């Protein structure tokens, strides 16, 4: 899966607790993305990063924060989890350099999060 791992793969937590999901890549790609996938909504972008310490919001960023202190890791934090954040979370990476594959995103295996 293009050198992308996500941890944990499954998590159950309680409302109000903080949760951090990790995405790790070995491809040295510049761009990293966090999406959530819910039935009837497809994939929606939460946040993305275009370099170390450079991040920007997606369409569903409320309640989430991210950090990227090094190229290979992109962390997604739910400061105080709510039941509406129960979802499957996917990380993706993109090279972004010139060439035919610069727009292609490569996805991790996903993290299933259940907030009770």
């Amino acid at each position, binding site marked *: 899966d293009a050198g992308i791992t996500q941890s944990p793969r499954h998590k159950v937590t309680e409302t109000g607790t903080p949760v951090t999901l990790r995405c790790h890549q070995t491809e040295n790609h510049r761009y990293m993305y966090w999406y959530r996938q819910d039935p009837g909504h497809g994939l929606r972008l939460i946040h993305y990063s275009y370099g170390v310490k450079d991040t920007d919001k997606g*369409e569903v960023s409320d309640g989430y924060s991210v950090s990227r202190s090094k190229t290979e890791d992109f962390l997604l934090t739910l400061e105080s989890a709510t039941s509406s954040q129960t979802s499957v979370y996917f990380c*993706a990476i993109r090279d972004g350099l010139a060439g035919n594959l610069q727009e292609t995103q490569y996805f991790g295996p*996903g993290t299933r999060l259940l907030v009770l």
Partner: protein
Amino acid sequence: SQQGEEDPQALSIQEGENATMNCSYKTSINNLQWYRQNSGRGLVHLILIRSNEREKHSGRLRVTLDTSKKSSSLLITASRAADTASYFCATDAPLNTDKLIFGTGTRLQVFP
């Protein structure tokens, strides 16, 4: 809001038949991509078509793009049971080509 909307939401066919999925989007784009997702897995890139292209082929996949109608179609020929998956179109976001906007997907079931 979603940029791409796929049609149909679900499609069931027999092995050997062709499967056609459609995607409509709202704003001008630089390119459109199709991804496949097997159950419980991450998305896998299938093909990209640029706004100045009308048709593209990759193996059993044929993608068309009609920018005047803001629509694209994905044709899978001679389908196999292994093609069973969800298929998503994705377009670059208006004013920010670093981001993709995904449609809601078509769930394809191919029966042996």
